[in-house]
């Protein structure tokens, strides 16, 4: 079977029903896409299939013929994408495990909706993050869209007797 992943057509010898996630991870050695639940609940496995955010853990590879698959590794192939850049600038990740899927969901949203509102982000980015980076995810998506964040977390306040930060 031939797969177009990150602009490269590669042959893989796998069962049609093998989820795309495990073809990417175990056959093509692209570890950026993560396994979280296997039932399309958490979004850690999100990749782009013809530009659409897709949960690869429930996507049989047999359905991928002729489609263009992009993973996080491919997103930054020509330098670093604006989404990744916004993620760095806003220091989004904590453990970081879910962030690959989170960024893929964000990039797909921005591709179809270049100036998303908070509500758009809430409706489209349904990935799970156990560390709780959601506030920064939202902020980074706005930053990648080149817009000011209307409802940003306030900067930390320091008591007057505290040491300088």
């Amino acid at each position: 079977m031939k797969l177009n992943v990150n602009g490269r057509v590669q042959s893989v010898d796998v069962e049609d029903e093998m989820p795309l996630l495990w073809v990417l991870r175990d056959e093509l050695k692209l570890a950026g896409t993560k396994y979280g639940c296997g039932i399309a609940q958490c979004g850690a496995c999100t990749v782009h299939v013809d530009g659409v955010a897709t949960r690869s853990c429930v996507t049989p590879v047999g359905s991928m013929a002729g489609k263009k698959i992009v993973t996080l590794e491919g997103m930054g192939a020509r330098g670093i994408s604006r989404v990744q850049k916004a993620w760095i600038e806003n220091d989004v990740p904590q453990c970081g495990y879910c962030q690959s899927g989170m960024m893929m969901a964000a990039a797909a949203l921005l591709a179809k909706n270049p100036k998303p509102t908070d509500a758009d982000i809430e409706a489209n980015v349904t990935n799970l993050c156990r560390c709780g980076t959601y506030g920064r995810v939202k902020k980074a998506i706005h930053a990648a869209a080149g817009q000011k964040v209307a409802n940003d977390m306030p900067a930390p306040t320091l008591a007057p007797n505290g040491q300088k930060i």
Partner: protein
Amino acid sequence: MKIDRREFLKVSAAASGAVAFEFVAPTASAAPAGVTPRAGAEFTTPPGIGMTDDAHEVTHWLVIHPDDRVVIRIARSEMGQGSLTGLSQLVAEDLDCDWNKVSAEFASPNEHIQRKRIWGSMSTGGSAGVRTSQEYLRKSGAQAKAMLISAAATQWNVPAEECTASKGVITHGKSKRRTTYGKVAAAAGKLEAPKDVKVKDPKDWTIAGKPMRRLEMPDKVLGKPMYGVDVELPNMLKASLVQCPVFLGKVKSVDSAEAEKMRGVKGIVKADDFVAVVADNWWRANQAAKKLKIEWDEGQNGQVSTDTIFASFREGLEANDLPAARKIGDAPGALASAAKVVEAEYSSPYLNHATMEPMTATAWFKGDGTLEVWTSTQNAEASIATASETSGIPLEKCEVHKTMLGGGFGRRGAPQDYVKQAVIIAKQFPNVPVKLIWSREEDMQHGFYRPASLVKMKAGLDAQGNVVAMQTKIACPSILALLRPEGIDKGIDFTAVRTFSDTTYTIPNQLVEYAMRNPHVPVGFWRAPGLQNSFYRECFIDELAVAAGKDPLEFRFAMLKPQDKNRLVLEAVAKAAKWGSPLPQGVHRGIAQSDGFGSFTAMVAEVSVNDAKIKVHKVYFAIDSGYVVNPDTCRAQAEGNVIFNLGQLYEANTIKDGRVAESNFHDFPLPRLAEMPMVETIFVPTGGFWGGHGEPGALNLVPAVLNAVYAATGKRIRSLPMKEGDLKA
């Protein structure tokens, strides 16, 4: 994983058209160099022991390259909490090096053993990374600085006292001679470390105390293989396993005929309490594992349910002769003569850690008689001990490569079950590395859960509404009994009674009793162990304030001494939240305070309830941790704790037929982005002590929110998870 940051900045600048990076480091052109390969993260080349290429160990905590790059060794783990960066900041601060040239690597557990535990504790829990190692890390930085200066002075033949060092440059003022750390590191490493060195006053910090970007950035956004599940080695096989659904059950027999015939399957490993399938691809292993026909010996626990467990808790609360965790004055006597008595019962369920990365470990029995393990661990010493014990290979011939953790929250510390399993499995495949990954279902149903508990509180008020007595009975499984039995003191597990046994509320008569009831469900350290007691106590205090007809903030102030740091954080949070000021229609406030893990914290939540649905709009969080080593990662912990713990309102693991009923995120729903409230963090670092950040932020979210829910609806939620109808009229 080796990333040249300058190269990275060049390409990213080219991509974006301008350098838009705001690395906290003074210039945008040179960012910290990241985590070096020896961290075990470059999986194709297992790191060796000793120094890399031309680098020189100055003290055991740091290595300096001739080009002035400083590599700081990290003994603790990085699971998102930011210790990797914070600990590096502390060493770099007293070393006075150039932060732009700092990277970090995990200290090798094998070398640690060979060098007689030179790096101290490798355990990462209890929000203790910074607070329990800051002293020796800062000292080590200062020692290295003195040694580097001394080496330069010797070369110049001048007294060391005439030399100074800053940002990695050593200067002899009189002769205006200069050299850099990298040039004298080799000579410095041969010197004896000075015994008495002075560490900096935090007031003079220039690296510590600043919001430095995480050292593992940008790797974490580039999809680099860095987690336990990402380990990839030559000829590696993958394993998936099935454990007995009823905890403590054993394998009676297994029919693996069908599984064995499946594509890619290389073998079946039958152990005492699990069966694993090993294949060339994890999905194939997992598919085959589903075809195993296993007959289990479920033992005596097949009938246990949440109901039978809570019945045992209730029996515990009614038992006589319970050990007392705190006894001040005569609580029963004072209750008998109180003007008003308030009583309430609260409860919480078992909770899985639900780390996004499931449990995983890779083991490789090598031809030379050594064993190497790669794993996401919160305690590499526990991992290497488990590897050695399970394999029978002496510690000195074992190595554990620490990877980044896809979340920890306490699951990957004391219990090393997944390392043990990986070693058992790989032992059947000599010379072949085998990577075990648990399915999410196994992970959900075989955790070390936050204990369920049932608590009964009774308080007496005098005629003026002051609390004169409080009696608390706690029925709760003991984490220590399972994982650290030597920590139990006279029948008391402090993690089960904290917040009651150590409250600073000045209630003159207090009695706290503990009924240890240990069902067969494994319990463990779940982020802020004992935090359910903050829910109970702070909601009950709110009930008392209502009974006394007093404002909940003023009511708490009346029970806190003027210099109590709990009072200071309450004042700070109330001020930030403008406690008492009008709120938009339908929005209500709740407040809570607790101390723990070395820090003092208070929270105010602004909440509305519509159609029986809770919406948390904003949370104010004040913390006094003495010092703040990295305000940005600490703030991230505060923000993360808010949403992590909001999940407690709805999450539960229920026990049915001796097993956990929930199996994945569809029936164990974690909060999503849309539920994230605004969080305002207020640091009140009063200095003089070192408190934690990973867990203190967890304590007050549930009580602050539920107290606000009461203010909004008049309904008191005393049992979690919330049930349909809890807030219906």
